[in-house]
Every structure is written in structure tokens, then in C-alpha cells.
């Protein structure tokens, strides 16, 4: 049991290192400047980017299922201050990706992703809004070929994932 956990952990770390810009993780020497520059850490002491990176570095994958990672603003204040140019918010993004199937995804993020995959926009385009555009003299923008977009994503498997995933967030407000 323990052995299997350890293997899974290393698998998470090596997956992350293989992703574009994932290997920047290895440059982190734990100085903590990211945390001192982070506006979320300032108001929420349990949000600690340095510690998150430490966990990933030693192969602890718990961060992927920790809801705190979704509190990252992707503001890059940390990255600007990092002496080693570690792509910190990007590494947290990769952790989020690994937590998807365990449901570590806010409902609004999931809804948005589903709208993007089905309609090609992050929001539903209403007919009153189309009328407003015409009234303002703005051109019709057309619609992208969704069949092509979905076909292009086939090998990634996102369509199936979005059908199956259940968010662990805000079940109370949900129904």
C-alpha cells in the first residue's frame, strides 16, 4: 500500500517535469520570496507557494487535490520576484490539472470549460446581445467550426473527462 502511494507520487512529479515549462520546478531552492510577494498568502496564511513547490519537489501529490491551489490568482507577482524564474503559477496550474478527475475543480470553472468545448465561447451568446451589437454598428463575428475543434482535441480526451468529472466544490449551492 505504502509502496504504491510512493510510486504514484513519483509518477506525478515526473509527469509534471515533462510538461512544457514544468522542469522549471527543479530550479526552486526554497528561498520563499514567492510567498512573501504573494497577495493571497498575505490574506490566507495556509496559501504558501513555496511550501506547495516543496511538496511537489519531494513527490507529495496531495497538492493536486488541495482546494487551495485554486486560490492562485495567476497574477505572477511571485514569478517576477523569483530569483530562479520558476514558472510558479504554471506549476500550480499543472497541479490543478492532475486534480481534475478527483473533482478538485470549482463548479464555475467546470461549467465554463463545458461551454467552451460545446459552443466555442466561454459564455452563451444571447440574441439580445447580438441585437445590441447590430445597434452599435458592430459586425457579426460568425461561429467557429466546433466539429473541427472537438476532433482536434480527440487524443487529449478532454470531452470524455468533462462528461465524467464531478466537482467537489459547493454541492450545497448546486442543487
Amino acid at each position, binding site marked *: 500500500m505504502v509502496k504504491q502511494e510512493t510510486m504514484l507520487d513519483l509518477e506525478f512529479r515526473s509527469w509534471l517535469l515533462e510538461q512544457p515549462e514544468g522542469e522549471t520546478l527543479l530550479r526552486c531552492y526554497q528561498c520563499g520570496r514567492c510567498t512573501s510577494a504573494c497577495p493571497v498568502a498575505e490574506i490566507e496564511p495556509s496559501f504558501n507557494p513555496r511550501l506547495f513547490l516543496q511538496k511537489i519537489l519531494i513527490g507529495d501529490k496531495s497538492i493536486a487535490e488541495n482546494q487551495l491551489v485554486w486560490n492562485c490568482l495567476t497574477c505572477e507577482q511571485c514569478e517576477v520576484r523569483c530569483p530562479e524564474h520558476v514558472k510558479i503559477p504554471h506549476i500550480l496550474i499543472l497541479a490543478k490539472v492532475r486534480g481534475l478527475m478527483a473533482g478538485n475543480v470549482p463548479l464555475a470553472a467546470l461549467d465554463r*470549460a463545458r461551454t*467552451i468545448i460545446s459552443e466555442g465561447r466561454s459564455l452563451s451568446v444571447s440574441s439580445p446581445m447580438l441585437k445590441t451589437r447590430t445597434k*452599435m454598428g458592430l459586425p457579426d463575428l460568425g461561429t467557429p*467550426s466546433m466539429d473541427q475543434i472537438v476532433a*482536434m482535441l480527440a487524443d487529449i480526451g478532454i470531452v470524455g473527462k468533462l462528461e465524467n468529472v464531478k466537482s467537489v466544490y459547493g454541492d450545497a449551492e448546486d442543487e
Partner: protein
Amino acid sequence: MSKPRTYTYFPGCMIPYRLPHFELTAREVLKKFNVELETHSEHSCCPEPTTFTGVDFEAWVTIAARNVAVSESTGNETVALCSGCFHTLAVANHMVQEDEELKKRINKRLKKSGLEITGKHTIKNILHVLHKDIGLDVIKKQVTNPLTSLKIAPHYGCHLVRPLEATHMDHAENPQWMDDVIRTTGAEIAEIEDKMACCGAPIMPSGEDKALTITASRLDQIKASGADAIVVVCPTCYTQLETQQAKVADKFETEYNIPVLYLGELLAFSMGMTDIVTANQRRFHRVKLGALLEKIGGTP
């Protein structure tokens, strides 16, 4: 008049379908400089960089690269008015430039629709177009109604500026381009503490309390500067600082009443096109513009 300079305009979702007054004023202002924005129907959601990335990064970078490839097929440079779109396209383009394997993998997917991303395409935001391509002196010549009575707080927002290697902006912590453009209108720049602070919007879906706390701190900093208005480029910052402003004031039992303008609206004021802003103010501005318009001699 000579042939207009044409950009491929990447519309995204928020500006065309939530805040079309951004698009309207940008188009009208750019027309003054003989700049045209052309669209392409194959452009989809960029996809937005704050949540979709964390759902499936590989899908995000692939769809983003497809949008860049669609742009490449037009032969024009691309301008994205929305900072989220700009960031997504610029970052994906940069990643493809830097990572041969990623480029190969994505082009294999794009081939099915006859598209290709080279990594060489230029992605711009409105500041690149105004500051670099048009130029401050040329902008100044169109200012017929100088806004010398106004003190403006430029709120850049994170995704417009960072990361520099992809955005090709002037500075990651102390950018100046929006300040420079605002100064051409005659307005004064308000000195705000923490120039590059975040508006808080990206974590609204996962931690609304924390998001609004960050928004309040941003509004406090701006209020302390004595600015008459905030000027933004990004529609998401606009939603957070403008649309949510009353909610933030209520929550923290304070008052702000700071008008928020899109950069194109400020430029429209300075170029005698106040009417294109006032015609849509009720629908898109919750914070009343009355006092501001009086100050610049327009009709509220």
C-alpha cells in the same frame, strides 16, 4: 486617405458579448488613425487563462494555438483587445516557439483542419498598437478636447503585462505605456501604491471572499490616490473594479464611487467622441459618470 493599416482583431468572448462598448470605442478611436480591425469567424474562445488552464492545460494550449494559426492564415498581425485573450495567445505562441516537441504535437492536431502554427506570428495588445505602431505624437494630434481637469489611475492588470517574455511589454513591475497614452489626452496620472496589484477577479469562482478582499484593497489604494477615474484595458478587471464595486463597498461598509473607464472611452472623450460613451453608459456603467462628464465639459 492612404490604405488603412489592418489588424486581425481577436474578439474572444467578454468584450464582444458582455462589454461591447470596449470594442465600439476601440474601433472608433483606431479609425482616427486609419486603423481597421478585421475579424475571422474561425476564432473561438481563446480559451480564458484563469480557469480553463487548470481543467486541461494541453487542451488550453491546443485551442490557443489553433486561434493563433487562424490568425496566421490572415497574413496580418493580431491584436487582442482583451488582456485575457492577449495573454493566452501570446503565452501559447511563446511556448510553441520555445518547445519543438509541443509545436510538433500541436501541428499534428491542427493539420486536420489545414492549419499550422509557426511560432513567428505577432500578437499585440492595444498598448502595442497605440504606443508603438501609431505613436504618442500622432495620438496627441487627434486630441481636440484635452482632459486637463482629470486625474487618472491606470490599472494595468496582470495578464496584459506578464510574463514579459511572451507579452513583450515594457516592464513587469513598473510599466509606463498606459501612463504615456493617458498623458496624451492631457490628463494627469494618479500615483497609486502597488502599481501592478491584481484586481482579484481570477479567484471569484473558487474563493469569492478572498477575491473581494483583494478588490477592496485595490480600490482603497486607488481611492487614496485621489483619482477621478480608473482606466483599464482588461474587461475582467473592469468587471471586478466596476461591476462589483458597489458589492465590495457594501461588504466592507465603505464608499468608493470611482468611475471606471476603458482606455478607448477615455481616448474617445479626448477626441471629441463623448457621445459614443454616453450613448451606452447606462447599460455598461454602474458607477455614474455624471460628475466626471461635468468636469470635462460634456453632458451627463
